[in-house]
């Protein structure tokens, strides 16, 4: 019994089991299960108010679940705050990005865990920080000219990339991204999606909240559908069409098999 549990658990980097969360009288999440595999991109989709962000915030430590268990790398864990989550290698990249406009790329990446040298680590090791940032830029193949470029002068897509690079530099292995392409043009969005795919290929597991279903179909391995705080199903991207996903989002699992008619894809955000 115990052995099967462990074996089942280690197959996944993250397992959420029967997670429930209430805000006052509102049931934001009802016994939600989620399993994320290593190096997988999982799209988290659902209409507004479906519970996508709430579920992800529970994993990132911004909220604490009322009920349910969280397993990370085969071990049951407690996540009470963002620090707990960070220690487990989980990083959430916020929509508003949390970058420092008065800093260049390197300082944005290293703030909070600066590299130092000298007695008592008194002196910033700028050389090493710039070099490591340069390496990171090359490794991730991101569209950033120089580690010294100021982020205030960057486009939305480049800023997203800096935020990702920061998470990677922090040795995060599980990334949660909240609507990363929402504010981007087509070219920029595609570049960013390329980077996300790139990260997954390096073994980083990614949860991608989005309203843009085509994005998910383009790069995700599986799609997790929420509606009214309940899990509607997990679809393999290779085996479904846009219509299948949208139908599940709009009608939910109980009515998904019905004949089409009232469901249309309306550019979702």
């Amino acid at each position, binding site marked *: 019994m115990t052995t099967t549990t462990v074996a089942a658990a280690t197959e996944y980097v993250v397992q959420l089991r029967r997670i429930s969360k209430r805000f006052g009288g509102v049931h934001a999440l009802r016994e939600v299960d989620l399993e994320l595999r290593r190096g997988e991109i999982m799209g988290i989709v659902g209409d507004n108010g479906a519970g996508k962000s709430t579920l992800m915030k529970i994993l990132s430590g911004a909220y604490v679940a009322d009920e349910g268990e969280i397993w990370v790398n085969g071990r049951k864990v407690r996540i009470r705050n963002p620090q707990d989550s*960070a220690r487990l290698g989980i990083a959430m990249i916020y929509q508003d990005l949390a970058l420092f406009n008065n*800093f260049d790329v390197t300082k944005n990446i290293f703030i909070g865990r600066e590299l130092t040298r000298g007695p008592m680590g008194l002196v910033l090791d700028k050389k090493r920080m710039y070099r490591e940032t340069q390496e990171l830029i090359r490794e991730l193949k991101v569209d950033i000219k120089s580690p010294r470029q100021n982020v205030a*002068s960057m486009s939305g897509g480049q800023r997203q990339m800096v935020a990702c690079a920061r998470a990677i530099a922090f040795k995060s292995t599980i990334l949660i991204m909240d609507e990363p392409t929402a504010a981007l043009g087509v070219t920029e969005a595609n570049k960013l999606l390329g980077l996300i795919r790139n990260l997954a290929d390096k073994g980083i597991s990614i949860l991608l909240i989005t309203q843009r279903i085509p994005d998910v179909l383009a790069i995700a391995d599986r799609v997790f559908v929420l509606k009214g705080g309940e899990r509607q199903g997990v679809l393999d991207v290779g085996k479904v069409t846009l219509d299948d996903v949208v139908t599940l989002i709009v009608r939910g699992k109980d009515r998904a098999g019905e004949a089409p008619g009232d469901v249309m894809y309306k550019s979702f955000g």
Partner: protein
Amino acid sequence: MGMDEQAQVSRSSMGRSSADGLQRHVHLGFLRKYAVVFVLLALILVFSLVSDSFFTVRNLTNIVTQNTYFIIVAVGLSFVLIAGGIDLSVGYQMSLVGVVTAMMMVLWSFPVWAAVVLGLALGTVLGLVNGLIVARIKTFPLIVTLATSVIFQGISYIVSQARTFRDFPSAFQFIAKGRLGGVPLDVWLTLLIVVVVALIYYQTKWGMRVVALGGNEEALRLAGVSTRRTKTWVYMACGFLTAVATMVMVSKANSVQSSFGPGTEFTALTAAIVGGVSFLGGEGNIPALVAGVFVLAVLGNGMQLAGWGVYAQFIVRGAILLAAVAFDEYQKSLKLRVKA
């Protein structure tokens, strides 16, 4: 005057800059940093033409030695400003630290070193009080330090009973009167502080976090840094340096009363803003800040020599502060446009 200069400098730079947004951004950064140096040079040029006694060794030396303590206060205040805060209470911190230090030496016959150490400790504690209040009660530092300023004022007058203390031990007077290699000790001290603080900003993790705090407090918190602690430290550092400046001021005057110090906050604040420290935090550099102090100093000195009277200086100082803040805003809007 100052306004014209700054406007001209910025226009000409705009004209030169290439169409490339990044390049223009770099240009702006450079301009932002060193516009004040051009303003200073222009002022020196103008007053040299207006008055024969301005550009003399004696007068220029005076300008430097009369402003060492303003530089020290401005450098201390820069921590708070760059971290996105403000400290209006530095003037009355000086008042309180000044009279208490003087009383320890004159009334209670403390050894000079003990009076100085305790005075510096008192200043640090006053900064700590500001820091704790600002960090705990998340409210506007402008109001908090306005309130503590009035409180420090009250305490200073109660403690001193509005008396004047003078004729300090010679060891204390030595701070301002002593010389090393022909240069006054307080000038060396100021130089040391300027260099050390500049190194803190450019070369230490703590300095980087201070700048980060002024740039995006929430992001710094998310990066796992205690913003409360950083804030508290910043006000403490300001209090400590303000106390150091107080020692220099009191030693120089060889006399002190509770009305010594107030007003310094305005000069230091103006100098910092003129020197390119952003009022909104996150930006500033120490060499330009020092130049900012000298802009005000040269202006005051030059206007006096040119016979413009004391009161006109107030008007010019106020106008300069306005111009500097407007310049700051103007640059921010340019940056936004470059980005878009």
